[in-house]
């Protein structure tokens, strides 16, 4: 892809998915005008992080755009309501039992992790997916999500803790 073509490609992707973006935003913001603003902001962020858009894989692209839209909407919600649900340091990792003692890694483990991530609260799964799959830096994720770098680190660790805990539970269940 020529470097200069990305604007046209992002424009095409936006036009294809703008209804999805709008309804994701509307579900979070519950306001038509806000949802439209969030859609425009999502377009701007898609342009900024266009190099992470996989133009060849429709599902990946749709998931990525949905994540951008979701986090842009949460960001707008927090900014406009002046309500930050996750102030820095306000969240603490739950004390969990050491899952390694109880968990057995099998071939099914990867599939279980897939399901855990898909069922996880996007607040935690999105930063993990941005970081581990889209190879974004925590600074970039913090900008997209409208939170601090520290919060991004926290949420990635929290996502891993959730996975460990869930695997531990399932391992115990298997026994």
């Amino acid at each position, binding site marked *: 892809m020529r470097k*200069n073509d990305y*604007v046209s490609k*992002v*424009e095409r992707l*936006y036009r294809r*998915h*703008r*209804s*999805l*973006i*709008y*309804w*994701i935003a*509307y*579900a979070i913001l519950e306001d*038509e005008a806000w949802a*439209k603003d969030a*859609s*425009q902001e999502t*377009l*701007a962020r898609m*342009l900024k992080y266009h190099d992470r858009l996989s133009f060849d*894989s429709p*599902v*990946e692209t*749709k*998931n*990525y755009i*949905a*994540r951008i839209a979701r986090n842009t909407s949460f960001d707008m919600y927090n900014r406009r309501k002046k309500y930050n649900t996750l102030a820095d340091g306000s969240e603490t990792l739950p004390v969990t039992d*050491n*899952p*390694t*003692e109880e968990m057995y*890694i099998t071939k099914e*483990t*990867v*599939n279980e*992790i*897939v399901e855990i*991530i*898909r*069922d996880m609260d996007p607040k935690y799964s999105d930063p*993990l*997916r941005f970081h*581990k*799959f889209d190879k974004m830096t925590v600074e970039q994720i913090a900008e997209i999500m409208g939170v601090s770098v520290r919060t991004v680190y926290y949420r990635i660790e929290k996502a*891993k803790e959730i*996975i*460990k805990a869930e695997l531990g539970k399932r391992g115990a269940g298997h026994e």
Partner: protein
Amino acid sequence: MNNKDTFDKILDSLLDEALPIVESMPDKNLPEETEAPFTEEDERRSLAILAKERAALRAVRARTYLKRIAVCAAVFMLLCAILVMSVSALRAPVLNFVTKPANRSTQIQLNRSDNTDELSVEAVYEEEGLYIGYIPEGFSLEQRTIGSASKSTFLQFKNGSEYFNIDTSIYQENTDITIDTENANVERMRINDKPALYSEKETIKILFMYDENYTYTIAGNIDKDNLVQIAQNLKKY
């Protein structure tokens, strides 16, 4: 490395396997994609965002091209400089071109190596004979001036639009004579074993020389050979 670190490493590698699978499946709980109520105003806003991005891209591209042009120009100039400096036939004209405008005039310092007494101005006027052994055909004396203040003799010969002047002055030790050589071809030579400077422009040619007693300036629009021949046959007693 404790159990926790080992487990974290294993979990990271499991995530590397699991996440591509997660991304290959549509996310759960995505809303239905019914047509969103976008208006023309919303469309204009979207287009404005895209236009802004394109403008920024154009600016970046322009800066990139300018940098490339500057680098190419620098390389071209460097190659030209190397070529010019390595070919003697090119080197001289180019250096002349570069240095000539700076040489607006040429100064000649009159300096006699022996310590003979200077001639007095009165003595010069008393001796006032000027021998001109060669005058190009067709030229006749038009003007003759003896400058009492400048202590010089000035003769002008004309033949239609052609002319030449002979200007003599007393040689004065350690004085500077300034000759306009801006944008002129300049040549140093010797005439009758005397140092001389020839300067040629489109409109005027000047031949300057001096001996122990006098300075001679022959200037006009006649050709160089005639000027040299006049100088070779010129003597002030």
